[in-house]
């Protein structure tokens, strides 16, 4: 009796397995799922190996009374950067400061200080060649792209702020609060950030994808910010740097900043 029952079960089981196998081929379970053909980049997008910015300090000095620091404003507006009154909790992607603060280790050289007195230095993420922030990030939420941009993935950031400790340039900001309360003008084409993540300049990666230069570069009326590929010998940045004298912030730390300041 028992044997008979077992045989029956076995037989039934086999039939079922066979049917199911053929059915599985028809992709039963995942009905409706489509397979995308793939992903690509747009033909018009700007492609480079190491994007860099060259800031002509002289032009900044000359035009500071008239330009209205359009570079900063354009960035703030474009990226929905909140305007937080408390300087301790500020979010800054691009901002200005004086020479002594921007280059503190040169601050004891009073002759240099005198010469560069009164010049607004436009500061932002240096998109270092060897970025310490990327090195320390435990989740690879901040990482270096192939084109040299030091990028942020806000979906992955856990808000540990190790990158802020590691960045020697103070280029990173943390969302201590929900930033939306501090927005006055909103660009609907760009998302805001959520509280608890670190953010910084991303060199307008999504503008590059659309074939546009970064917002600050575009906005500067004096064309004082030059954008280009450092790896491309024919790029404008390379030409300018070959001709003129440029310094980088905290050169001695070996981070290899991609933002140059023309000081002659």
């Amino acid at each position, binding site marked *: 009796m028992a044997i008979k029952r077992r045989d029956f079960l076995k037989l039934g089981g086999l039939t079922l397995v066979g049917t199911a196998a053929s059915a599985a081929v028809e992709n039963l379970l995942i009905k409706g799922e489509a397979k*995308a*053909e793939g992903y*690509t*980049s747009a033909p018009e997008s700007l492609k480079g190996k190491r994007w860099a910015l060259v800031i002509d300090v002289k032009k900044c000095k000359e035009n500071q009374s008239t330009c209205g620091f359009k570079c900063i404003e354009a960035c703030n507006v474009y990226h929905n950067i909140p305007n937080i009154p408390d300087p301790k909790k500020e979010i800054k992607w691009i901002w200005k400061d004086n020479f002594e603060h921007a280059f503190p280790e040169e601050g004891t050289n009073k002759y240099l200080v005198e010469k560069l007195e009164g010049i607004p230095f436009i500061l932002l993420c240096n998109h270092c060649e060897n970025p310490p922030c990327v090195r320390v990030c435990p989740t690879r939420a901040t990482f270096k792209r*192939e*084109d040299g941009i030091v*990028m942020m993935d806000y979906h992955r950031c856990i808000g540990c702020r190790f990158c802020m400790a590691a960045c020697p340039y103070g280029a990173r900001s943390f969302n201590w609060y929900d930033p939306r309360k501090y927005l006055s003008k909103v660009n609907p084409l760009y998302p*805001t950030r*959520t509280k608890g993540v670190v953010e910084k300049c991303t060199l307008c990666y999504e503008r590059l*994808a659309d074939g546009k230069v970064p917002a600050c570069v575009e906005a500067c009326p004096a064309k004082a910010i030059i954008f280009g590929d450092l790896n491309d010998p024919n790029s404008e940045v390379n030409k300018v740097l070959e001709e003129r004298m440029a310094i980088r912030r905290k050169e001695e730390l070996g981070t290899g900043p991609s933002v140059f300041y023309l000081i002659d």
Partner: protein
Amino acid sequence: MYNANKVIPGIIIFILFFTAPIWLNFGRLEAIPQPELPKGEKKCVESKEYMRAYHMKLLDDWRKKAIRENQYIYINSKGEKYRISLQKTCLKCHNNREKFCDRCHNFVITHPDCWHCHFTKEEAKKWQ
């Protein structure tokens, strides 16, 4: 039956507990909301069935491709190309969060945190 004074209330509690879903709806049942599809647009980046089940996965893939691999164009199963951007592409058509996204999401209680960063134009007006 013995101990009926305890067993019968027990049975009633048992029935009430396992039929709770019926009673919880009692007198407060709301109609099943219909998400309002964008007017004018006939199709999404993929088929309706796929989008209904898999849109979140698609968005997640989009993010990884765009942010981490610098690939900003999605080619769908029919070979059509779309610019990857929640703000620029998705929300262009689905421009009403309340009538489209929230209707379903509130109905089935899935609260993705998309809206912490992303937003529709309409919404932005409120907190500007």
